[in-house]
């Protein structure tokens, strides 16, 4: 899996690009302090790294605060309708394999009204990169609970607390046969860009969940992961091939906490490395076809405190890519039957002639 494989058909830019090349002339209209600004800047400054011809990059979005994103990218873009961006992008990506197609969506857009399209895009493994901005609230409609809001959440539409259990987007994606699933945080540009890099390199659908702060309606939702006082214990940074360790450094310089697997049940839990020994600490394998470990990792975080939240690439496996296979079928049809002959098609086999 390399950039060349995922983006091999996308023309490269003639010259060197800078972040400025990807800034459109539109005034950004998110609320001051919104996490979306950080993500936009991270994406704009990351794109030159790919070196793709700007005109071959397309951002497609649905409806919601994050879905204004395409207006601010100096690429081709479509701000579509609520929840439908993965479907629209699927049609574009399957018919134009020379494009790098990105979907920008939110927790309401992708997981509520557009849930069906999201899971089917993941299942098909179309060559799309989906950035799911998760702020756990409806922002554009001014503060109702979302499908990722915690149970009991007090919002305008749930004055006595939400009765619903939230989706875990990463668990959902793994269950939907996703071949690439990652999670990152708006304020950690370095990590965000490293995840974007991996997503861009991935042939097929990549889902990147970005924890994003809505400072108006759900401020501080991810504070536990950002506050230096708590982050060390709360955030588990995953690296493929590395033991999953976090927390205050141990003597070997790695985290003093580690993720261990119960050999009987397969469940994952957090343990003191000093107590269990380094050998028992799980080594992260994002490339293993079996999704069990990635799913177990996605369930590790405490839904209320967010403690033990893994970030990074949870799953990154090779699977047949829908648009590639569709193109192959077209080629195969031509090699089997020759280029379509319209006159022959219209005539068919049973004809008669009136002189």
């Amino acid at each position, binding site marked *: 899996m390399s950039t060349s494989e995922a983006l091999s058909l996308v*023309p490269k830019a003639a010259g060197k690009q800078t972040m400025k090349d990807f800034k*459109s002339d*539109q005034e950004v209209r998110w609320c001051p302090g919104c996490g979306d600004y950080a993500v936009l800047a991270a994406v704009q400054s990351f794109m030159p790294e790919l070196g793709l*011809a*700007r*005109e*071959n*990059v*397309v951002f*497609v979005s649905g409806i919601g605060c994050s879905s204004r994103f*395409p*207006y601010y*990218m*100096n*690429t*081709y*873009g*479509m*701000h*579509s*309708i609520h929840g*439908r961006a993965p*479907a*629209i*992008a*699927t*049609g*574009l*990506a*399957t*018919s*134009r394999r*020379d*494009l790098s197609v990105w979907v920008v969506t939110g927790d309401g857009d992708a997981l509520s009204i557009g849930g*069906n*399209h999201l899971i*089917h895009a993941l299942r098909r493994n179309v060559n799309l990169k989906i950035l799911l901005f998760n702020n756990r609230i409806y922002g554009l409609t001014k503060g109702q609970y979302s499908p990722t809001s915690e149970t009991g959440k007090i919002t305008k539409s749930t004055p006595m607390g939400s009765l619903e259990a939230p989706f875990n987007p990463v668990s959902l994606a793994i269950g939907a046969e996703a071949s690439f699933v990652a999670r990152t945080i708006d304020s950690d540009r370095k990590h965000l860009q490293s995840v974007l890099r991996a997503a861009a390199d991935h042939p097929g659908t990549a889902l990147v969940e970005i924890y994003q702060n809505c400072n108006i309606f759900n401020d501080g939702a991810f504070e536990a992961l950002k506050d230096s006082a708590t982050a060390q214990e709360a955030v588990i940074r995953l690296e493929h091939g590395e033991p999953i360790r976090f927390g205050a450094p141990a003597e070997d310089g790695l985290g003093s906490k580690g993720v261990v697997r119960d050999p009987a049940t397969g469940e994952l839990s957090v343990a003191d490395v000093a107590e269990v020994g380094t050998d028992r600490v799980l080594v992260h394998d994002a490339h293993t076809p079996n999704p069990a470990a990635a799913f177990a990792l996605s369930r590790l975080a405490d839904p209320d405190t967010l403690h033990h939240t893994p970030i990074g690439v949870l799953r990154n496996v090779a699977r047949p890519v829908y648009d590639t296979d*569709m193109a192959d*079928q*077209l080629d*195969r*049809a*031509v090699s*089997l*039957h*020759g*280029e*379509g002959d*319209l*006159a022959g*098609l*219209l*005539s*068919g086999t*049973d*004809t*008669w*002639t*009136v*002189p």
Partner: protein
Amino acid sequence: MTSQVSSPITAGTADEPHVVVDVLGEQRKPAKETRQLDRVIIRFAGDSGDGMQLTGDRFTSETASFGNDLSTLPNFPAEIRAPAGTLPGVSSFQLHFADHDILTPGDAPNVLVAMNPAALKANLGDLPRGAEIIVDTDEFTKRAMAKVGWAASPLEDGSLGAFAVHPVPLTTLTLEALKDSGLARKDAERAKNMFALGLLSWMYHRPTENTEAFLLRKFAKKPDIAAANVAAFRAGWNFGETTEDFAVSYEVAPASAAFPKGTYRNISGNLALSYGLIAASKQAQLPLFLGSYPITPASDILHELSRHKNFGVRTFQAEDEIAAIGAALGASFGGALAVTTTSGPGVALKSETIGLAVSLELPLLVVDIQRGGPSTGLPTKTEQADLLQAMYGRNGEAPVPVVAPATAADCFTAALEAARIALTYRTPVFLLSDGYLANGSEPWRIPQLDELPDLRVEFASGPNHTDADGTETFWPYLRDPQTLARPWAVPGTPGLEHRIGGIEKQDGTGNISYDPANHDLMVRTRQAKVDGIAVPDIEVDDPSGTARTLVLGWGSTYGPITAAVRRIRREGGQVAQAHLRHLNPFPGNLGQVLKAYDRVVVPEMNLGQLAHLLRAKYLVDARSFTQVTGLPFKAEQLAAAVTAIMEENADVDV
């Protein structure tokens, strides 16, 4: 339905000369007495598992290759296999063929083939006196008759006295013919539809070699089944030739005079529409992309287009109706000729995306094969009740052009026309076919490729605007002054990077705009673009030039209306006829045409949707004649209804 049967097809009125035909060459011909007919209507009816649609299709193919004009009406339940032997499980296929030009599958069958009591009971009411009935007597058991509420057999109690009944033990004869085939009884029994087809092929001198070739192709992987079907088919033919029950056979001469010269084939509406889409893609030199979700009666278009990937056709079976149109719209943004196919319930789900396409001003074909509604309605039956949905079924002012084919073969041309409008004006376009056109078939003169319209489009390739400071820029909503179409700038074109969306856009720049005056301008401009689409004038057929009544239809009622008009004229009535292909915008001369007649009658398979539009736009007293039975109009009823309106207050008008 333009002429009467030249002699009633009843056994025993043999007043025509005997014609004995020798068996010549490979094509077998009946040796018994032959009578000439100018047209025949046959209906095959049986259980939904009896293979009546296949039987009808084969008889149609034989008839088409013989050169008759023809029109078909498949009629089947939504259930794949309803309980055997019950009335809801009856599936039928009606075929009208003639030595002259005909327009409908016929009002009433001359011949009914009934494979069981349910099939007889369900269809008996449609038969005129003297009709022939061929029944499989083996199926008339006490139990089978009890299922349809018959205590005694109608074959024996004299209740069928008005008809010429041919009792044939079809099952026994089929089993007998296949006793050496080695097939299990159940498999052998399945071939009885081919026995019936063989018998009917004998009766009407149909060419048989194509059917035999078809059976060998269809069951190529099961040679014993193929052989059994051919054997049953031949046994049926031979049975007609030898049994005394069938004294005569009939000949319906080819309809040579009815057809302009050319090469013909038989084609159903859905097949013609599929070919029209592929032809449009070729003529536009754009790849065809179909986003579709299976739905009756539109799925056959998805199936057909999926078979033609060597034309560069991409078919995408989406997770739902919304994704189907979404993917198509995405492909259109990328420069494809994009299509979504569906039926009424699917259109309802697609409405928001159609609105987005109106706002994005991208070409998109929305093919609606209408069926009975509302809701799930009658999935396998026909109706024209989505016209107002196509016209108005969206939020906001969202005008969409509407094109409707008139006949099965016309679906080809209508698809090309819908594509022309979509591509020229950068707009979604509705193509309103229906279940009757979709599944019915008729002869089609195969067009030469040079007869097809040139649909090539030019993508935007460079800047189209100069800023005040002299910078060359691209404005995605700067319109062509003639068509009001905006430029189609596809991703991959350097320098034209732009963003579009469903939020109101500023005229020209396409930037988000909430400006009140701009919104007013954009709403009116989108409307003006659709209103200004060039469509041909409507032609009026008024041979005497003295008619005071105009019959105006749209879509699949063309056949029945034309047949009804011919009936009225044959009786000496003066009536004018016109048929709308373009329902949005209407032809420019429509208002004048309407005002030239004292009375305008609008027959529709809905509760008067076109009449409603005509009244609103032209302030004419359009009179509705409507039927929503899930079946096409019968010419006789339509003629009577139109005549009644013509005769109302006739003294006042004369």
